[in-house]
Each structure stands twice: as structure tokens, then as C-alpha cells.
């Protein structure tokens, strides 16, 4: 399990990285950040990039801040950064709830948020969260900067609409309103494994009624998406067991679950239902 040969590049600025990637993109050039997904694929030789462009030395990618009510996460921000208090408000609370569920301690100290988006694993927690928060993915290339709405970003399992010469340099997402309630639940056979399904939810409660509900389901389909049927079931309802059950049923009915050797669609659908309800319940705690 030794990787195939490649040429290594270590740019010190975003522009330099873009220039190099532009040159090597057609020779299967790839960006490496945390490497926690790409390096294993290279070890198995299912990925054999001829060029690796390492963006770990680009200090400008360290940005993690809220500006104009939008959270900005640069491409060098690692999972472990999202500890409680790192980001203010309910958005920060939600990030801190999700973060410990990613892989394990060591992977979290090296893997990056934007790397997860670029890798686009169906079971990526960050992809589901970016979907929930209507994120924009900032893609940079020698041709300039492109902002991709998360709804137009995923293209299939581990596939995105990024061009080969584009680098995800940042993700931006509007922060949740103060008072927004959030919840997260995922199920995997062992904690930290790729989830069979997960739900991330956010909503407010005004005058005893749910407003602005959001439900993002990950792991069940090739890429995460907001489940509007579940959101509709919540919108205006009292935040009670009946509403949560209705939303969970709606989410389960709406998904078209992937299957694998172990997991059939029916089981995954059941997990979507359970995850949605549990995520919603957590939001009320």
C-alpha cells in the first residue's frame, strides 16, 4: 500500500497554488490539505494523482471568522478547531455538536472542513452541515473566483461541480439567527465510522410554533440535501412529538437511500427516520 509516484508542489500563496494547479490539472493534479481522505485513497492506489499541490503552507487559508453575519471557513481550518466557543452563537454550538462525531481524535486534528467539502463523501458531516446552512463554496482558479451555491455543488457521491483547476479556498455560510435551536444525530455501527445516515436540524420556536425549520439529511443518498417535505411538516407546528414524528416520517419517505452489501434501502430509510426525530428532539433539549 505504497502510493504511486507524484510530483510535489508546495505553494505559499493562493495565487501560486492556482497557477500550479492550472498547469498540472490536466495531468491529474490534486490539492492536498489534511490528506485524511486523499492519502488513504493513494495508499490503495485508487487515487493516483501525478501532481500534489499542498496548501498547508498557505497562511491566508487559516481564516475562521464571522463577517457580515456570514461564517467564513478557510481551507486550512481543521476539524478540531470547532470546539465550543470557537464560533459564536447557535452556529458555533451546532459546529461543536457535530465535530466530535467526525472520525477520531487524530483525524480531527489534521483533516479540514473545506477538504471534506472537496472530497464530498456522502457520509461527510460537514457536507450535510454546509447543506443545512446554505453554504457557498468559494472556488479559486487562475480564471478568478467562483461562488458555488451548495445546492449546485454536489454532483454525485464523491463528485462535485468543481473544475479540475479550481481550489476550494473557503466556505461561507450565513449564521443562524440568535435563539435558533439545533440538533444532530447520526448512526454508524461504530462511533466515528461513515454514518449509515445522519440528520442535522435547525429551527426557531416563536409563540410555541416552529419557524424557519431546516432538515439536512446526509449519508443516505449520494450527497446530502435539505428535505423540504420534513421542513414543511415542521413549519408552524408545535415542537412536539407528533410534529417530530411527522417530520421524521416525511424525511424517511422523501429519501432514495443508497444500498450496499450490508445495508438495504429499507434499513437506511429507518435510520433516516430515527436520526431526524432524534436530531429534532436534541434541538429541544
Amino acid at each position, binding site marked *: 500500500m*505504497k502510493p504511486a509516484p507524484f510530483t510535489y508542489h508546495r505553494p505559499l500563496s493562493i495565487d501560486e497554488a492556482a497557477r500550479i494547479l492550472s498547469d498540472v490539472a490536466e495531468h491529474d493534479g490534486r490539492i492536498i490539505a489534511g490528506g485524511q481522505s486523499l492519502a488513504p485513497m493513494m495508499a490503495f*492506489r485508487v487515487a493516483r494523482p501525478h501532481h500534489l499541490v499542498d496548501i498547508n503552507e498557505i497562511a491566508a487559508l487559516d481564516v475562521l471568522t464571522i463577517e457580515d453575519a456570514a461564517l467564513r471557513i478557510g481551507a486550512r481550518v481543521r476539524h478540531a478547531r470547532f470546539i465550543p466557543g470557537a464560533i459564536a452563537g447557535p452556529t458555533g454550538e451546532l459546529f461543536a455538536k457535530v465535530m466530535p462525531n467526525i472520525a477520531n481524535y487524530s483525524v480531527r486534528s489534521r483533516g479540514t472542513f473545506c477538504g471534506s467539502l472537496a472530497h464530498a463523501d456522502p457520509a461527510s458531516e460537514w457536507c450535510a452541515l454546509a447543506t443545512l446552512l446554505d453554504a457557498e463554496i468559494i472556488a479559486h482558479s487562475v480564471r478568478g473566483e467562483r461562488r458555488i451555491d451548495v445546492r449546485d455543488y454536489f454532483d454525485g457521491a464523491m463528485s462535485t461541480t468543481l473544475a479540475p483547476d479550481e481550489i476550494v479556498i473557503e466556505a461561507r455560510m450565513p449564521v443562524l439567527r440568535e435563539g435558533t435551536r439545533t440538533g444532530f444525530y447520526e448512526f454508524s455501527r*461504530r462511533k466515528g465510522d461513515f454514518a449509515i445516515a445522519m440528520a442535522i436540524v435547525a429551527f426557531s420556536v416563536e409563540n410555541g410554533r416552529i419557524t424557519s425549520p431546516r432538515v439536512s439529511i446526509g449519508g443516505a443518498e449520494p450527497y446530502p440535501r435539505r428535505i423540504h417535505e420534513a421542513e414543511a411538516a415542521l413549519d408552524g407546528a408545535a415542537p412536539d412529538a407528533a410534529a417530530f414524528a411527522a417530520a421524521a416520517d416525511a424525511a424517511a419517505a422523501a429519501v432514495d437511500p443508497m444500498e450496499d452489501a450490508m445495508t438495504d434501502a429499507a*434499513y437506511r430509510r429507518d*435510520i433516516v427516520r430515527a436520526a431526524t426525530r432524534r436530531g429534532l428532539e436534541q434541538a429541544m433539549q
Partner: protein
Amino acid sequence: MNAKPQGVIGQSVQRLEDRPLIIGKGMFVGDISFAHQLHMRIVRSTSAHGLIKRIDAQAARALPGVHAVWTAQDIPEIGPIDFREGKIEKLEPYRQPVLAIDRVRYVGEPVAAIFASDAYIAEDAADLVEIEIEDLPVIMDARAATGDFAPGLSSEAAIITQGFGDTASVFATAYAVVEIDVTVGRHSGVPLETRGAIGRYDAARDVLELHGAAKVPHKNKETLARLFGRPAAALHLFETHVGGGFGVRGEIYPEDILVLAAALRFGGAVKWIEDRREHLMAANQSREQHHKTRAAVDEKGTLLAIENEFWHDQGAYPRTHAMRVAETTCGILPGPYRVGAYKALGHYRLTNKTPAATYRAPGRYETNFVRERLLDAIAAKLKISRIDVRKQNLISSDEMPYARPLCVLEDDVSYDSGDYVGLLDKSLKAIKWDELQGELAERRKRGELVGVGLATFVEKSGLGPTDGAHVCVDTTGAIEVITGGASVGQGFETVMAQVCAEALGVDYRNIRVVHGRTDRIDFGIGAHASRATVMTANAVHAAALIVREKALSFAAELLQSDAAMLDIIEGRVIRRGESEGPSITLGEIANHLRPAAKLRRGREPGLSADGWFDTDHQVYPYGNQIAVVSIDRETCAVNVEQYVIAYDIGRAINPVLVRGQILGGFAQGLGGALYEEFLYDERGEPLSVTFVDYLMPTANEVPNVEVIIAEDAPSPRNPLGIKGAGESGIAAVGAAIASAVDDALSSPGAVTQLPITPQRLKKIMNRLGRA
């Protein structure tokens, strides 16, 4: 005759092995390098069954840094891999060739070998080898219709039978018959260290060396010397640190033979380190068996007869063990219970999966699951408690020794000692069984799915027939113990040192224990079948007692005392009961026993001795396990809340090490019960070739375990009373958890298959209407 105990036997002293391992100075096979070594890489079949049409290695050979590429035709002199215990007529034609000849039979089968200057280049070259294979139909289920292994050779390589009594007539007249149909999933030891081997030919001495040996170096030396036609002194095996054995490591695999053949041909060192993907498709897998088992009982649940037909999924080839797992399955299934009549019929079937062999508690993890499922089924059918059905069938202590006309590892089954009911009572007390029933009932009322399950079992250990050891005191008083044993990380050195220390009267830390070196001692059977402590320690004990005698008799002369009045305390011979007064150290005695020493006067030179321990029978430890589980009604995940393991070891040399064996075995057993499984698709493609797909328990999954180590029934079959420790923790985990899951579902017999994955449990719960 026994030495006055210094008390180190039975003490949880710290291990002698640890220091290098915690400072990063361990010497595992991957840590060894020889100058100018070549690196081997195996090109493996990507087809589960097919005819090899063409192998093109031109591009690989042309790659800079590649020294050679071999296919089967490059090594015509090397025959298929022999069985450890010698020739087995009916399996001879099924033996695995070192590199596939004409036909491949599993994904991962070695087809070609690359030898290159560097492991990275070797892997590049392997990618360049083109293999054209014409696919043949695959057999992926041992219960499916048999096919041809080769023209005229059935995939049912053998049928194994054992039994006693006339089961048919018992079944015909029994009060009730209970039948189960259950499956144990394919999983294995998966040590953290993958396999590895370095072949080295020392032309100056004409010695061929294999570094990275494990478990059974001496046995493997015999086999390899035969294969290479070399005299015993011209081939040696060297055990390194071994990163977990579990049955998997230390067998002779194709790669071991290839590095030796290449070392001979190229005249240097050839190193091979398995990668994890290879390990999960090429190292021995285990456990996969389907059982149709039935019991005839009377109205009280007394076991009158058992019939046990099973299908053993051997994978593509027999391995060095031949049929041991299936044979053990036959011989040990009745376990700790009296049975009037018994018949086992095993179908030893070859399929197109990775070959199988032993994994910690081979044949017992499987049969404990099957038999305990059967006992639970009897209890359910007759509406008696799971405890009562066991207690009334358990062999009682006054029936010991208890022989039954069955055979395990070529040894007639004869349980040596035990109080099975007494130990079960200890566990029931520990878990507060009666109170627990009330608590669980309360929780069930609140809608929880919770349950408790239990399993009792008898282990086997201390496989003979003999073991030898050499104990030598040098002139500084330091002691070397040379054994034919092996260490797979279990604490072998510490335990041998403790036994030697106590017999000899020295500090165990002053003892160096040699193992796994065929150049240091001629004979050894190694570390498997939980034999090391029973067999090797008793041999060490015997040798140490002889040395003690020698020391005392010489000291008696030197101190002008009666030997019977002398004792050895901390390496010094003194008059019994006198801490002051004349004394002499063992080092000084050794000095007087130098060949040229003046005072030796015709005594045999050296303060050293060989000791042997022979046995007619294995020894049979026993135990029970109790699990409390809860099931998530929606995800169907099983959570093990509480676990008790009680085990009678006869005599614990080092209780903390025994407990460590039990805890580690439990974690592996938990893997087999809930998580681990080698899956294949319908074309024979293995689906569990990464650690993302083959799910071993982490610290999140393994609960704390209450371990009860009993010493109620020391073995009468060896002077120390020892029984083996290695396999008790794992042996009944599948059985106990299955029983607990049934209980949680209030549905006896619900679980018929291991591992109990949430996906499978969901289907069961849907069927039962419990989801």
C-alpha cells in the same frame, strides 16, 4: 520434592517484556533490515475462480529497480504447502501451490512475485503485471451444491464424523426433539501487525534463515527443511517480536516459502511485509460454519442425544492445519454437558473465498454458540429456566475425570477436573441474577429492550505431547532459560521466568527467557492451543528443579551441610532458616562448575539442566459468561451494558496477565458477535479489505468486564496444576450475547447468525413485530 515457594508464582509481577516495547525499541519483523535486501511484492489474483490464460511480466521486469519477477514456472522445484502434522492422504491433491498453477481459486491468491530494490518500486512493478484469467463459476456458500476443485476432485474435500451411542434410536423415542439451524460468520484474528518474513541465505555457513517466524518455529522448520531438502542444521527460524498471533500468525504461507526460495536463489536477504489489504484477503480467515443441530431430551430437559451436522467453509484451499477446526468442532461440541449419545457429521467444503484455519478458540467459539443456542432452545421448549437446563446437564465434579469417546487435536477427550456448577453459581452471584431479573422486568415495562444471556463452556488447553527447556546459571548468577516455546505477546517470558524463579529460588528479573530460536534448542512445539504455560512452564519447572538439586548437592559439599538442610533464597544457598551463617551464591557454584574449575571433581560441567514435561492428555479449563444487553429499538444496535466472565484456570501463575488474556479475548469475541465479518459479493470479490469495512471494536465499543478467576480445580495432570488462559475470554462471547439478545426481544431462538449486525437484527425485529 517441590521447591520451597518464594511466592512469585501467583503474583501479578510486572512483565519483563515491556521495556523495549514502550520505548520504541521493539524488534518486529518489519523493523529488521539486512544490507542489500530485496523487497518482495506479491501479484494476486483478482478473480475468485478462473483459468490463467496469460501472464505478461515484461513491463514489470523492465522497470528500473526490479530484480526479478517469478510465476509458478520459475519455481518448478517447489511443491505445494504441506500440512504441519505430516501427510494427509485425502487432502494431498487440494494443497495450495506457492504460486498459482493454471488456475486461481480466490481473490488474493498469489500468482506472481516481484523482487525489487524497494517496496515502493516493487508495488509499481506489481501494477504492471498483466494477468488474463478466464472466469469459472464460483462457489460462495459451503451449503450450495458441490463443484469441482479440479477435474475429478470434488469441492467437498472430506466428510468428518465422530460420535458415540445410537442417536437414531434415542431420537425415535425421546420426549421432545429440539432443532436449530445456525451460522457463525467468517472473521479472524486480524493482529495489528500484518504478516512478514525475511528470507536470508548465509552462503558462508550454508544456512538458510527465516526471520519473522511466530507461534510454531520448530514445527515450521521441520516442514520447511523437508520442502527445501535441507538438513536440520542448515535451516533456522528466528522469532521476532510478534504483533499479535491469535492463530493467524506463524502458519506457513506461500510468502514464507517464496522469500526463502528467493534468498537461496539470489544469495542474500529478501524481505516481505504484508500490507493490510493483502492481510484481509490472504491471511487465514476462520469461523464460518453452518450447523443443523438437534437434541433429544426428556421431560426435564435432560440431554439424551445430540446430532450435529455442519458445513465448514474452508475457503479455497486447506491450510497447514488441514481439518483441525472442523475436527475440533466435532470433538468439543458437547462441551460441559453429559450427553447420552452423540453424532457429528461435518462437511469440509472448499469455496472460492480466502482459505480458513484457526483463530483463537477454534472450534469452540463456533460450538459454544451452537450448543448454547441449543440449550436455550430446550429451555424455551420445555418452559424451564436457562439456568436449570444447564445445571442439570452440567457434568458434576464427582464425575471427574470425565472421558468421552471423542477426539480433539488427536487427543482423546478427557476432562481432568472442574466444578462447573459451582463456577456458574459464582457468576450468578456476581451479576446478582435474581435482582437483575426484577430490574430488567422493570425496564421492559418502560418499553426498553433489555435482556440477559449466559453461556457455559469447557475449554481445552495444554496440547502435548511434550516440551523441553534448558535452564543455565552463569558465573554471575544470571539465568538463561531456553525454551522451544514462542511468544505472541501474551507475557510468555514473564511467566516462564516466574516459574523458574520460584523453583530455583531467584529473582524472576534476573532471568532471560529465550523462545522461537531453532538454533538455540532442537525441539519445540511453540505457542498455540493455549499450551505454552501448561507445557513449556512445566518443562521449565522440571529443568529448574534439576538445577536446584545440582546446586544444593554441590553446596552441601562446599558448605559441609546436608543438602536437605539447605535452601536457595534470592540466588543464594543458605542453611534453612538461617539468614546469617555460611552461604554461597548460585553464581559462585556455577563458577566452581566451570569445565576447568578445580573443585568440580568429576561433576558434570555447568550449573545447567534440561527438563522435560510429557503428558498423555490435554487439560480442560472451564468457564461461563453472562451478558446484559440493551437494543436500540430503532437502529437495532446492540449495546453490551454488563459482562461477567468466570474462568477456572487451575492455577494462575500471574493473575494480571491471565486477566489481560481474558479481557483481550473478550474484545475479539465481541467483534465476532456484533461487528466483524468478511463479506464477499456473489462473484467472490472480498468486500472487507480495509479497516473501514472490517469493523474491529474500539475503546468505544468494548465495555468493562467483571472477570472472576477461579482456582477451584487445579489440573491433576501437571505438577503446577496449570490450565491454559489464552482462549477463555473469547470462547463464549457469541453464545452469551446471542442469548441476551433473545432475552431482550423476549423471543428465544431469535438469533440464528453471528455477527448480530443492526441490519440483521432489524429484519429479525420486523419479523417479530418488535421494531
